[in-house]
Each structure stands twice: as C-alpha cells, then as structure tokens.
C-alpha cells in the first residue's frame, strides 16, 4: 500500500516539482546575471504553449522514441521511489536515455546527430560513476535495495565523501548544464543549435521537457540517498547541491567533449574508485 502511494505521488507530483525547480533555476540564474528573470511558473507556460503549436516531424518514428523516453523515465522514477533495486534503476535510466539518443539520431539533422553523439559520450563519462556510487552504497549497507539504503542508521556520505564529490561532478551532465551542456542546451545556438532536440517541435518537444522534469527529480532523489537517514536535512542538503550546480552553471564555460570525458573518468577513478578501495580496507 505504501509503495502504491509513493508511486502515485511520484507520477503526479514529480512534474510539478520538476517544473517549479526549473522555474526557480531560471529565476536564480537571471538574478545572478543581474536580470529580473521570467516568472517561476514559466516552464509550465512553455510546455503548455508547445502543446498548442503545430508539430513538425522529419520522420514519424522520432516521436515514437520520445514517447518511450518519457515512459521509461517515469518507469525508472517509480522503481526508485517505490524503493526497488538500485541497479535496476540505473539500467532502466540508461535505457530511457538511449531512447532519447535514438530519437536524436532518427531526426537526422546534423545538429541533432552531433547532439546524440555527444550524449553517448556523456553517458560513457557519467555511467561508471553512477554505478560506482551504487557499489559504494552496497558496500556500506550490504544491500542494493533502496528501502534498505535509506533505512541505514548513519548518513552514507560519512563513508562515501569521494563518491559524493564524483557524483556532484557529473551532475551537470544529467541536468544538461554548463560546463557539460554538450548534448542539449538552451545556450549553445551558435555551436549546435539545440542539439538533440533541434528537430523536435510542438507536442514532442513538450514531452521531452516533461521527461526532463521527471528525470531531474529522480536525479535529486539519487543525490538524496547520500543523506537519507534524516529526511529534512537530506532534502535541505540536496537542494543546496542543486543550488551549487546552478552556481557552477553560471560560472563555467562549456568544455569540449574530450575534456568532459577525460576529467570525469579521472575524477571517477581518483575519488570514486579511491573511495571504494578505502572502504574495502576499512570495512573489512
């Protein structure tokens, strides 16, 4: 019954929270740049407007992939928030991303193809760290089940500071923010127009936006696992990490893909794997 409630809560509340988060993000970004900024509810207006627009498609199948992207993101989120296996969550999330990438390829414009290629590179960059994070959590709590992980009595980041750092390092990729907004960005017109979403318009673009709201909430939930033993402090710390990401977004320029890949692997090796090796000796 409890699982049922959390599933329903995720499906209904996540898009609202995600949209408000995106709105707050835009507002804070604007303030940081000395602007007034759009209203907090702007992301809603954007999506509702997109629903009213004509949908131009290059190939019909591109929309099919977007629908599956949305469905699998929601599926992943429900798995996560109903406390299922963390590894399953990670693989389902990857599958969802792959659908999005396929949609970008299918649209077959040079910009969306470049965006998709870069999205694949980014996946290569962040996927090891996410899996290492799951492994680290397993080593501490002896379980991959999220219900077990959150009921562990000490906050996980005591044991996993290096992994937390590595995880924060790759978060801008998941939120598609600077310095890692290579695949899809609001701010890269000159370079890649709109990356993967270049060829999507109207309803399908709206679907992509909604999927990103779900995904952002899911990723914040993942960050929250590091502080899960106390809900209030956990939420506060998670939100402050999001704020940190916004600051990073506004301070750094976009990097090249080589840099994104190399640096995240180095960070992953040093801090992620280092953390796990350390744990291995300490917890033995």
């Amino acid at each position, binding site marked *: 019954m409890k699982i049922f409630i959390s599933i329903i809560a995720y499906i209904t509340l996540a898009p609202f929270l995600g949209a408000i988060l995106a709105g707050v993000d*835009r507002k804070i970004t604007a303030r940081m740049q*000395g602007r007034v900024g*759009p209203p907090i509810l702007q992301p809603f207006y954007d999506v*509702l*407007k997109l629903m*009213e*627009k004509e949908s131009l498609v290059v190939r019909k199948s591109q929309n099919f992939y977007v629908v599956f992207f949305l469905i699998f993101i929601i599926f992943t989120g429900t798995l996560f928030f109903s406390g299922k296996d963390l590894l399953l969550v990670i693989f389902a999330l990857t599958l969802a991303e792959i659908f999005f990438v396929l949609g970008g390829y299918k649209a077959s414009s040079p910009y969306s193809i470049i965006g998709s290629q870069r999205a694949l590179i980014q996946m290569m960059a962040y996927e090891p760290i996410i899996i290492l994070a799951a492994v680290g959590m397993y080593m501490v709590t002896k379980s991959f089940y999220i219900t077990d992980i959150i009921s562990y009595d000490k906050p996980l980041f005591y044991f996993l500071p290096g992994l937390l750092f590595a995880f924060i390092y790759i978060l801008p990729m998941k939120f598609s923010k600077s310095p890692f907004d290579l695949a899809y960005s609001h701010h890269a*017109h000159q370079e890649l*127009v709109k990356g993967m979403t270049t060829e999507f*318009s109207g309803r399908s673009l709206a679907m992509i936006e909604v999927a990103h709201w779900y995904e952002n909430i899911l990723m914040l939930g993942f960050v929250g696992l590091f502080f899960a033993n106390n809900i209030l402090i956990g939420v506060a710390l998670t939100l402050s990490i999001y704020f940190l990401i916004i600051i990073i977004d506004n301070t750094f320029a976009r990097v090249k893909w080589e840099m994104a890949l190399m640096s995240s692997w180095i960070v992953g090796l040093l801090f992620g794997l280092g953390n796990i090796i350390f744990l291995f000796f300490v917890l033995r």
Partner: protein
Amino acid sequence: MSYLKRSPWVIHYDGTSCNGCDIEVLASLAPRYDLERLGVINTGNPKHADIFLITGSMNDQNREVVQNIYEQMPDPKVVVAIGICATSGGIFSECYNVLGGVNKVLPVDIYVPGCAARPESIIDGVEKALKILEDKKHKLVAMGLGTEILAIEPANIEDAAEILALQKLAYQSEAELYNDFAFPPLMQTLSELKEDFKTIIFFKAVMNGIIIGSVRGYVKDDTCYIYRRIVHPIYQNLGIGKKLMNEIEFHFGFASRFEVFTGHKSKRNINFYERLGYRMFKCEKVNDKRHRVYMEKFADRI
C-alpha cells in the same frame, strides 16, 4: 486561454544592414531590458520559434534563407520587421542587389520603425506581435472546429480594392519563386481590375466580413477559363481554394471544357489542379524566367 502569449520564443535573422538593429535586438535580450522576463527565449532554432525577428533588408542571396527559416517554423507564427531597412530597404534600398523590405519576401505582421530601432520599440513590437499570434491561433482553432463561417459568394465592383490588395499579397510567393517581380498580377492597377469586372465573373471567400480568397473566370467558345485563384497566406492549406474552384465550376456548369494555368515551378498548384481532375496539355514560354503550364478538364469528367 492560450499560453502563446506567455512563452514567445524568438528567432532572429539579420539581412543586409549596418548591424545597428541587429545589436539592438540583442540588447533587448540582455540584462538591461531583459526580454526574458516576458518569457522570451532566443532560440536560434526555427522549429522552436514563434516569432521571427528580422532586421536589415532583403537581397537576392538572403531571400532563400529567410524563406527557409519561415517555412521551418511551426504554426502559428508571426514575422516582425525591425528597423527601416527591414521595412523598406532604408538606406540600402537603392543598392543594385537589394530587393527592399522584408515584405518583398514574407508576409510581415509588425513593422518596428527606427534607425536603429530602440530596444523599447522592439519590445513594444514583440508585445504587439503576441496579440497577432493569439489571433492566428484562434483562427486556426476556429477553422478546425468550423465555428467561423466561410461564405463563398459572387463579388462585385465594390470589392475591387480589397481583392486587389489580397491579390498582391497572395502573389508575393509566386513572384518570389520565379524571381520575377514584374508579374502581371502584381502590376495590375485598380482601374484595370475594375475594367475586368465588366467582362469577368469574380467570386470571393468571405470570413467575418473580410475577403480572404477570390477566383475569377469567363466563358468563351464553350470553354471556361479560370484564373487567379488567391487565398490569404494565413488561410492557405485550409481547403478554401478548393471551395472557390468548386463554386466557379458549378457556376459555369454549362461549359463543356475548363482550363486553368499556372507557372511551371508551382508544383503545389499543379498538384492541386490534378487532384481536381485537370490534366496538363501544353506548356508555353512567357519569358526567360517563367513558363506557363496549361491544364484542362472536360465537363463529362466532373
């Protein structure tokens, strides 16, 4: 209610200009004027844009680019011409390669005056464009639901001025296609058109008291010659042209043969007439730029 007004995404193109207006458009997006507080995003991608901001005049090279961007934008969309260059060609209007303002290429909805146009007036122009955007949306919806009544009726000489204005608007894209701005429909004067009313039957498509389409024709030697089927750009692709054709064919139902013509590059027109049962029977050269394709249909085929 419509959310178009709350989230207008713009795309910006700069034609032949001194870049003054170009910079002012960017200035209105920058912190001091901050268009984003109205929800405006500078997208750089025509497929995501609602408002097309054009600065600078049109020339032979950027004409195709502008047309292409416009066609890639999903409906409903509006075009805002910013600065005197975009309005009429401005100081560049006498250059050998300059065609003139944006309205030589696209149907412009809002003109923002000024050289350079100030950010305040650009923001004002965008605001006004939002109203038009909503209007267009309502029209599209109303047409889809059939709540706006379309009436096809014979036109008389009082409609001449309105039909002429529509004709010039509707033939822009054709003139554009052939790069022939001395196209007869564009050159016709009001008195010539009034003269036509004595010998030719005109039909008009009226919506909310405004003429949005027209066609004309006459019968000679048992053949009905139909020509100048025009529809306002906003209302194209909504089946109005077909209704006009049906009406005039019905009116001249006694004729045993119907004949239409169009330009050789106007593939959409040729397809349209083929769907109505017309077949091509000859092609004639008009001038270097344009050939005329003649199509016919016999009464027993109707």
